[in-house]
């Protein structure tokens, strides 16, 4: 089986994306942060570096909680999406 990009992986899942983000970052903290562990830890790669800045997109989130556990800088205001929103696994 050929390797898949993260986008291809996430495209297999069904999402009901809420209009508001369920995870918010304190950008000031993230700007100063090294080594930005969230870049490696997020299994949906919601965290990306763009022109040296950390950008975050909640839409593909798999709701695992890893970023919340691993960021020790207190930059993440984390919650699950509102009821009914977010990913819905077909198999699980």
């Amino acid at each position, binding site marked *: 089986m050929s390797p898949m990009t993260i986008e291809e992986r996430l495209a*297999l899942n*069904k999402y009901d994306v809420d209009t508001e983000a369920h995870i918010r970052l304190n950008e000031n903290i993230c700007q100063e942060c090294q080594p930005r562990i969230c870049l490696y830890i997020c299994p949906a790669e919601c965290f990306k570096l763009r022109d040296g800045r950390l950008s975050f997109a909640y839409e593909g989130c798999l709701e695992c909680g890893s970023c919340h556990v691993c960021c020790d800088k207190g930059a993440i205001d984390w919650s699950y999406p509102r*009821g*009914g929103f977010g990913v819905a*696994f*077909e198999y699980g």
Partner: protein
Amino acid sequence: MNIIVCIKQILDPEMPPVKFKIDAQAKKVIAPEGIPLVISPFDEQAVEAALRIKDAQEAKVTAITMGGQSAKDAVKHVLAMGVDEGIVLSDEAFNGSDSFSTAYVLSQAIQKAGEYDLILCGRQAADWDAGQVGSIVAEELGIPVVTLARKVDATGGTVRVERVIPDGHEVVEAPLPAVVTVSSELGQARLPTGRGIVMAARKSIPVWSAQDIGCDVSRVGAGAARSEVVALTLPIHERKGEIVSGETGAQAAVNLALKLRENRII
């Protein structure tokens, strides 16, 4: 005021495209087992239209759906939004019904449900996009129909509808009882509240069979279908990209406009 809303469950339009499968031989869509059906978005807006009327005046809203095992989930969802009662119409005999048979079954159920002033439907089901059921229900019941509503006001004995037309809207009035089909321009349907969800989960939902609503079974199901699916194919998505450039931004825009004109897109 008694309002009845007809709702239909469809394959989830948010479903990943790769999961969409058909059986071309049997001309049937194969619903993936793990992705529950949802209410057609236009029907959800019809429910919203009903609830907006109910927000403003004394009204009772009843939702009716024809469907299988999961039809109750559709009813629960609209109960959670604020609908008062829900009825499921389920019978082997209904399987394979086309727009005509479906409208007949719905109109039988509407008559059994009791008094009605206003019947709301989505402008079309977002799966087959036929857009016929609302009008045929009106025909069956012998009452007027106004299609493509973006705003519905019902007071006294009339319904006042802002009706979407290609270059704006027109205002149409009809005497009640009447059928109105609702378009997406009505705006977002409301989300269920916490209390609504719990109340809906508690409610028992009656299931009516063909016999319960006095259906003439020769008029329903695949056998009675007056329309036929000739072929069913999956669209092939071709992604062709072309980058239109120009010396300056403005020049690029002009080139783009020319390209679009060339291809008769504008």
